[in-house]
């Protein structure tokens, strides 16, 4: 048996979400290729991977999971879809394989004491929504200025789109703004009625919580109904190139959260260029390297690799880690700025450190603005408000545990 750490890659390159799924998947693959080419693997353990097409469909995702989870040296799963995450959340504890859901998935899973196997690294829908409100407040001249204002939420009518609602309601209560909810039926190609309603109720701000084609359609409809684009704010899943590219000038002024940095300057992207693309081994087109979702893919895979590295520190360098060991690594990750700089991730993300209780590790994001041709980071880092999130997460995870008749992990379990 060769020493190989296996990374299963669930992805979708067909169907309605392909334009967003593809760069994401490419980034994930390229990083692994780069690690193999540059470092010869993780402390000598070669990385293998296999991609499985889910088409964003839950049942196919489950099949992929079942197929790939039995591979020797399987590391962790990144389902790339909220629906699949829900299904796998039930299965992962049984199979003892961790799930990484960077910036998506179950918001309550940040509570590592309840969700031992889920890792919503770097932020969840709740942190995103929280930061978005902070930013809107800031633009309005202070959160207190939101009183009496109206904010509309145009969201993908699915668990993905509905997750942020509890948090937004919490914030609405706090600041006294009115929250108008406008669901859009998936995949979101027809939004005329939604935007007519926006035009009628004239909200001060609109939050866009879409994925895939829904985003560009929303921007086009905003343009068609004359809603000012600079009053339109998107989540980080509505802030990549495919979302705005074909709207072009029409989306100028649109702001969206930036979970991660991007661009081709950073060292890690340069390394990928050098070790992968220049050798003709790039997974996708060269010009998408360094784009928003591509870079997110790179970060996800870096975190996976680092988790393995961390696990090796405890369980034996140069060994293939099991899912359980990787889980420990994920839970005890500590990437400070120095490490990030060393790995070439400067400017792409904030330091991240996890613990048994905190599976998110970092709750920061910035805001970017589309200038008609490209995205530009236009704000400093925001951090979501612990005070609001904590109780919500606690309540949610308590309910989850009660429903499942499970108990919270104890300190002993945290050592394992």
């Amino acid at each position, binding site marked *: 048996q060769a020493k190989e750490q296996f990374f299963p890659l669930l*992805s979708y*390159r*067909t169907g309605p979400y*392909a334009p967003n799924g*593809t760069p994401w*998947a490419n980034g994930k693959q390229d990083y692994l290729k780069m690690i193999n080419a540059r470092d010869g693997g993780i402390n000598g353990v070669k990385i293998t991977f296999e*991609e*499985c*097409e889910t*088409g964003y*469909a*839950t*049942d*196919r995702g*489950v*099949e992929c999971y*079942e*197929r790939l*989870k*039995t591979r020797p040296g399987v590391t962790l799963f990144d389902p790339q879809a*909220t*629906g699949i995450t*829900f*299904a796998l*959340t*039930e*299965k992962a504890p*049984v199979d003892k394989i961790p799930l990484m859901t960077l910036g998506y998935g179950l918001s309550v899973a940040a509570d590592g004491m309840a969700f031992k196997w889920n890792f919503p690294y770097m932020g969840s829908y709740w942190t995103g929504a929280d930061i978005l409100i902070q930013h809107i407040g800031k633009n309005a001249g202070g959160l207190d200025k939101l009183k009496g204002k109206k904010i509309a939420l145009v969201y993908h*009518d*699915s*668990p*993905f789109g*509905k*997750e942020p*609602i*509890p948090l937004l309601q919490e914030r609405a209560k706090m600041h006294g703004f009115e929250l108008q909810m406008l*669901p859009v*039926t*998936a995949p979101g190609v027809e939004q005329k009625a939604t935007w007519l309603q926006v035009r009628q109720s004239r909200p001060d701000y609109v939050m866009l919580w879409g994925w895939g084609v829904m985003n560009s359609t929303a921007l086009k409809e905003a343009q068609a109904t004359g809603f000012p684009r600079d009053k339109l704010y998107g989540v980080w899943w509505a802030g990549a190139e495919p979302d705005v590219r074909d709207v072009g000038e029409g989306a100028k002024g649109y702001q969206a959260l930036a979970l991660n940095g991007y661009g081709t300057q950073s060292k890690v992207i340069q390394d990928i260029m050098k070790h992968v693309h220049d050798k003709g081994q790039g*997974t996708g087109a060269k010009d998408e390297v360094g784009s928003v979702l591509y870079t997110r893919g790179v970060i996800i895979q870096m975190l996976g690799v680092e988790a393995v590295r961390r696990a090796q520190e405890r369980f034996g360098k140069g060994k293939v880690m099991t899912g359980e060991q990787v889980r420990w690594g994920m839970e005890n990750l500590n990437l400070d700025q120095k490490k990030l700089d060393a790995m070439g991730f400067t400017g792409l993300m904030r330091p991240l450190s996890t613990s048994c209780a905190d599976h998110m590790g970092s709750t920061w994001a910035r805001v970017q603005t589309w200038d008609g041709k490209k995205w530009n980071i236009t704000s400093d880092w925001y951090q979501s408000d612990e005070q609001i999130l904590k109780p919500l997460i606690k309540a*949610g995870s308590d309910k989850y545990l009660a*429903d*499942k*008749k499970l108990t919270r992990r104890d300190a002993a379990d945290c050592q394992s």
Partner: protein
Amino acid sequence: MLYRENGQFKTSYRADQQIFPITQDRVGIALLLAFAFIAVPLLASNYFYTAVLIPLVIMSLAALGVNILVGYCGQISLGSGAFMAVGAYGAFNFFVRFPGLPLIPALILGGLCATFFGILFGLPSLRVKGLYLAVATLAAQFFSDWMFLRIKWFTNNSDSGSVSVNHLQVLGMPIESPMAKYLFCLFLLVVIALLAKNLVRGAIGREWMAIRDMDVAASVIGIRPMYAKLSAFAVSSFIIGMAGALWAFVHLGSWEPAAFSVDISFKLLFMVIIGGMGSIMGSFFGAAFIVLLPIVLNQFLPALLGLFGIEISTAGVSHAELMIFGGLIVWFLIVEPHGLAKLWSMGKQKMRLWPFPH
């Protein structure tokens, strides 16, 4: 001449009315059941259970339900996904709201919810026919998609609309391991298939088929179109609802409304048509075709193309898979428009004549 009924004389109508009047068929089925219940558990891996067998068994059950409505009663429906969803969420609600309710009653209650929903959306069939009805049943589909997203009560007030169940057990035996899940589903499938077979070869089945083939003539010989159609909707949606509940409880464990999207409705219809309308056996063939083919293609296509020295990108595989899938559907239809079951029975007919060509 291994396969033929010659020489097997029936001395009573009862004997002739058996499900499998031909001895070879009986033996074959017995072997198949033995294989499914005994040999498979000895051989199958966990992957095979969870990714192949369990979905296959549950989808066979659903296809069987659809076949009763579409194949036997001739009412084309694209709302099957909705019936599955109603079954799943119905069973879920009984399951969580009545703590201690055993699994099987919950599933049956889920099925009954689907029955009710099915009858409701079957009412238009009394006036609307054919493709018009097919499209109209999509109303059920989209309505249920919306209902389970929007009405929080159905999802036990879950914020996201996603719900989950666990700790399944039957008569004290946990249904947790893949093998247990498989055997449980298989058992239900066999029982329901048997009941369904009894129905379709009995009086009610004849009514359904009569309505399908020529409804005016059927009413002249005393068949009430309303009763026949609504009973078909009821039975079919009960079975589909059960299948939906199994899909949610046993296969997915945790699900959201999108798990029962319009895609599933289409897939179920494919299964029935590809497998053979008006054939219980056909439902199984159809389910196998639609469930297995993508998995097989996905796994073997790259290797296969590799043999010919074609390097293909990951996206390419997905697209090629779509193309091959579509191509195969068309090809099978051309070979036998009446489905795989017909192909099977023609094969048997040839066997009967064997070794003579005609």
